[in-house]
């Protein structure tokens, strides 16, 4: 098991729970026991929680799994034919089954901002940024995706002067649609975060960030939140197919006996009939569980066909979404109003319901629509007539 986080932990836990009694080695390059990342941009950055709240399991529960823990040491290579993983300390770990769950790392900008330039992926990242924020500090957040937006909201709550720099005209429009994107933009505005759209950043510079038009945008601290890169470098030359992540089939297998799970894995999701790579917390767990079962029962393998789920907290808005919203062709608000921050929107791809996104709605309503996604309900039956292209 390579990658000691949400997906890797779910895989080892499932293997043990379902009767595997052999050796289980969990390899991770971070020095910590598996911990949870979503709180990093929320309660940890905001200072409501200390790091002791983020471990994914109590030490006793982790002990009970009887793992060979190899933490603080990276995997550096894979020998598929010899069935061994090479580690940075020179040792080799033989395996009968392998789960690759090495996640992603933040994409960076050129330039050197020293201590003032931040990314947000690990506990150490979150603590470093938190240490340097506070009333009156000027923070520039590059990228108004979910991560950048959450961090901006929290930093603002700490009294920092926050500017969000985003190249697109409406933040998150490809992910959630224009109208929901505008609602989120308005929330930034209402909370005194300066959202600047249509602004592209070229590099981190001394004293701030350099925009593509050459001007310097001044800031004390810079958080770069412009997406991520799958951690597949250590698999180069192994013979596995690497593209946008580790390429896997519908069983989440990358090769016989080798599976991918979590943020690093791109696999074919038969429920949606398309390949996807999902960077969501729940998917990491569900995929970890699914690959453990496929490893354990090679004769009864099941395709991994989940309804992806994510949530995001921005100010007092909690967004919950089920399904695959990317590439949607139409959005219909079926209950409430986005402008009132209480609504339920459904997303169409082709003639099917592809996803649902809700803010402030009763859980039953959300679960009902999730069911429509899970059964790939026809849009015409669930919502009504298809709108003409581009509506």
């Amino acid at each position, binding site marked *: 098991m390579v990658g000691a986080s949400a997906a890797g932990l779910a895989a080892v*836990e499932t293997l043990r729970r379902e009767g595997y009694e052999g050796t289980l080695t969990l390899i991770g390059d971070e020095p910590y026991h598996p911990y949870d990342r979503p709180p990093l941009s929320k309660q940890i950055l905001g200072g409501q929680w200390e790091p002791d709240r983020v471990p994914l399991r109590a030490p006793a529960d982790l002990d009970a799994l009887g793992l060979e823990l190899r933490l603080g040491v990276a995997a550096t290579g894979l020998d598929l034919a010899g069935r061994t993983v090479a580690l940075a300390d020179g040792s080799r770990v033989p395996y009968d089954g392998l789960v690759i769950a090495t996640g992603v790392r933040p994409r960076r900008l050129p330039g050197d901002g020293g201590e003032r330039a931040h990314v947000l992926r690990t506990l150490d990242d979150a603590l470093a940024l938190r240490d340097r924020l506070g009333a009156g500090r000027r923070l520039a957040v590059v990228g108004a995706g979910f991560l950048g937006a959450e961090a901006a909201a929290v930093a603002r709550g700490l009294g920092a002067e926050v500017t969000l720099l985003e190249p697109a005209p409406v933040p998150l429009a490809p992910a959630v649609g224009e109208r929901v994107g505008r609602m989120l933009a308005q929330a930034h505005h209402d909370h005194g975060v300066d959202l600047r759209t249509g602004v592209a950043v070229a590099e981190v510079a001394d004293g701030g960030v350099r925009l593509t038009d050459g001007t310097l945008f001044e800031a004390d601290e810079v958080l770069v939140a412009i997406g991520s890169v799958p951690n597949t470098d250590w698999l180069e030359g192994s013979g596995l197919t690497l593209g946008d992540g580790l390429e896997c089939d519908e069983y989440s297998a990358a090769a016989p006996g080798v599976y991918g799970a979590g943020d690093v894995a791109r696999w074919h999701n038969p429920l949606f009939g398309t390949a996807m790579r999902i960077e969501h917390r729940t998917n990491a767990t569900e995929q970890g569980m699914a690959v453990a079962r496929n490893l354990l029962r090679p004769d009864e393998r099941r395709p991994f066909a989940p309804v992806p789920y994510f949530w995001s907290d921005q100010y007092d808005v*909690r967004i919950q979404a089920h399904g695959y919203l990317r590439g949607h062709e139409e959005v219909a608000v079926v209950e409430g109003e986005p402008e009132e921050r209480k609504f339920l929107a459904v997303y169409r791809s082709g003639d099917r319901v592809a996803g649902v996104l809700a803010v402030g709605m*009763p859980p039953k309503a959300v679960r009902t629509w999730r069911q429509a996604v899970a059964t790939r309900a026809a849009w015409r039956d669930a919502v009504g007539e298809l709108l003409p292209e581009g509506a």
Partner: protein
Amino acid sequence: MSGESSSEGSGASSGEGKGVTMRVEVDVPKCVASGQCVMIAPDVFDQREEDGIVVLLDEQPAPELHADVRESAVVCPAAAIRVIEK
């Protein structure tokens, strides 16, 4: 949360192979209202109507529910569910 484990080794709970009693704890401030637990084990978990935060319906679920409860604990995206088995 009170931790009275009903008489050790009562032997009443068979069927799971291990003959265990199960106690469930939820760390409510961690819950992110995903509803995953409710979809997996609706007899044990529910969600508050106003904000979707978890409500524990059954602190000591019956043996036939144990598998679903364990599944919920693994799936919970906030690691808010803890299962203690004796």
